């Protein structure tokens, strides 16, 4: 048994990591729907989900069960093979893209038969990191387009057409807008891109790519929202004109697969924004401010205490038990981090990465609660006439600045 483990150690590490990541991402997806419904509800002065479990926290679970047990009719006249393949394609590509993201710079403190365990599935020295991500997202359009076509129905077909035109148009701007970052880092590797931002480590937040690449960030984030078909670019599923767009004819778990794919790509885009423009796992404070390493625990303990207090005054018995339990766990985690400085140091990068990703997810939801949808011609002229020229201008500007620095600047 030990010999078998030793011989296949690398394979086993990767398989375990894949299983863990899929579990984490699916759970995160489920709670992202809860988060979105809650935030949008409060923006519109409503309560949002609040019946299933305390604060509606078990709503995602109920939704999942509902999706699994709903009837799943196949409409007449669909192209059977493509109709069944489209949601699978969408989901698997969305999940694959997250495998490229590195979640921390250091391997775990313990080894598995002499192999380092890094956070993230792709090897940290993957040379084509960002290109591999673009390759996977480039294929993502087929899920939507084929779902629309194979449904044998007018609205999905229009949704699929819109989506393929939109994704082809915005992919150009998306790719051009990161060229500036790539020029500054001199590498496609995501870890290298983060490390390039750590060069001026005493500057903290001001050393990140967001300042010199503010144009690139604007183009990237806008194009990425369009690529993920989210508000204000959600024309492929515009419910006021197209019923539900490309997934009108899908029900039950096949619909859920499109849903999960959309939310997973939201997470991927947030990861990418964080890594390329906001310093990835770098702390926003200068490196010499070591006291900021206690920030995670200082945030965890009060929020844990707040959850306990909130649970005490909760009306139902279930909430009175569940919420204080969760709160104790959160506060305990915070206290544990103070007591174990080694662990505290280790989780610093991952803490900042997750905090930034969460911020971007909030921005996504915020926009959904605020912005109206584009008209189709506005969408096209915005992509081609504004985003693309601006991102090309950004590439030219960045190259000139880098060239000037190489000629005359500090080296």
């Amino acid at each position, binding site marked *: 048994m030990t010999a078998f483990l030793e011989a296949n150690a690398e394979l086993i590490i990767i398989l375990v990591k894949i299983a863990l990541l899929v579990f984490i991402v699916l759970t995160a997806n489920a709670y992202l729907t809860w988060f979105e419904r809650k935030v949008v509800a409060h923006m519109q002065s409503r309560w949002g989900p609040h019946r299933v479990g305390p604060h509606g926290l078990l709503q995602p679970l109920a939704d999942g069960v509902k999706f699994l047990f709903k009837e799943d009719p196949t409409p007449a006249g669909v192209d059977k093979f493509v109709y069944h393949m489209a949601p699978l394609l969408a989901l698997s590509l969305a999940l694959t893209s997250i495998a490229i993201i590195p979640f921390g710079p250091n391997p775990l403190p313990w080894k598995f038969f002499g192999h380092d365990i890094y956070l993230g599935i792709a090897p940290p020295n993957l040379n084509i990191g960002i290109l591999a991500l673009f390759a996977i997202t480039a294929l993502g359009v087929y899920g939507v387009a084929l779902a629309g076509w194979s449904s044998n129905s007018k609205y999905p077909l229009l949704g699929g057409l819109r989506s393929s035109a939109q994704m*082809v148009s915005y992919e150009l701007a998306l790719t051009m807008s990161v060229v500036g970052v790539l020029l500054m880092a001199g590498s496609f590797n995501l870890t290298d891109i983060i490390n390039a931002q750590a060069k001026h480590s005493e500057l903290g937040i001001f050393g990140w790519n967001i300042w010199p690449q503010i144009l690139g960030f604007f183009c990237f984030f806008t194009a990425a929202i369009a690529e993920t078909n989210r508000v204000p670019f959600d024309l492929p599923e515009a419910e006021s004109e197209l019923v539900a767009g490309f997934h009108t004819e899908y029900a039950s778990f096949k619909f859920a697969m499109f849903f999960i794919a959309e939310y997973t790509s939201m997470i991927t885009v947030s990861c990418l924004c964080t890594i390329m423009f906001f310093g990835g796992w770098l702390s926003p404070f200068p490196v010499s401010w070591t006291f900021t390493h206690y920030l995670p625990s200082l945030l965890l303990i009060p929020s844990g205490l707040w959850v306990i207090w909130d649970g005490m005054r909760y009306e139902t018995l279930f909430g009175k038990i569940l919420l204080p339990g969760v709160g104790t766990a959160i506060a305990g985690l915070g206290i544990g981090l103070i007591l174990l400085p080694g662990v505290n140091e280790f989780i610093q990068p991952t803490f900042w990465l997750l905090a930034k990703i969460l911020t971007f997810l909030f921005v996504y939801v915020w926009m959904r609660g605020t912005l109206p949808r584009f008209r189709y011609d506005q969408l096209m002229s915005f992509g081609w006439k504004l985003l693309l020229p601006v991102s090309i201008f950004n590439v030219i500007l960045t190259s000139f600045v880098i060239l000037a620095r190489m000629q005359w600047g500090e080296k």
Partner: protein
Amino acid sequence: MTPQLVVFFVLAALAVIGAVSLIVQKHPIHSALSLIVVMVALAGLYLLLGAEFVAAVQIIVYGGAIMVLFVFVIMLLNAGVEEHTSISKMAGFPGLLLVLALAGFIGATIARAADTVQSAPQSGMLSSTRDISTKVFTDFVYPFELTSFLILVAILGATVLAQREKN
């Protein structure tokens, strides 16, 4: 059988099956999908040879951009199932001969070159993107620039055609 060889045979089989299915399928969308399978399998083969950059670009350009346009146009025109006519003898007989001749030619070339041409090392070594770009922008800069000029001409031509219809 090394793991690389297993992956190679799986990808090669996928590419061949996709290519055959591209011709055999009756619906244009199914043919387009088969072509995408071929493209992706080819990208996998490039990756196996250590050409990471080429593999990624293969998927981005062919799988992502060009095939999306194919699928888009097929969907837009709503092209239906093709009718297969029975192959005429005129086309069938010379076609078969041509296939045999071509297969023999390719086989002979491979057999002749098998000793001299070295297969790419399967050491897991990856060529860096920096090397490729240095080559493209120094040794091959004229072919590279000429290609981009050609594409520019094609874009201008398309614009002129589109404008003429309006006037």
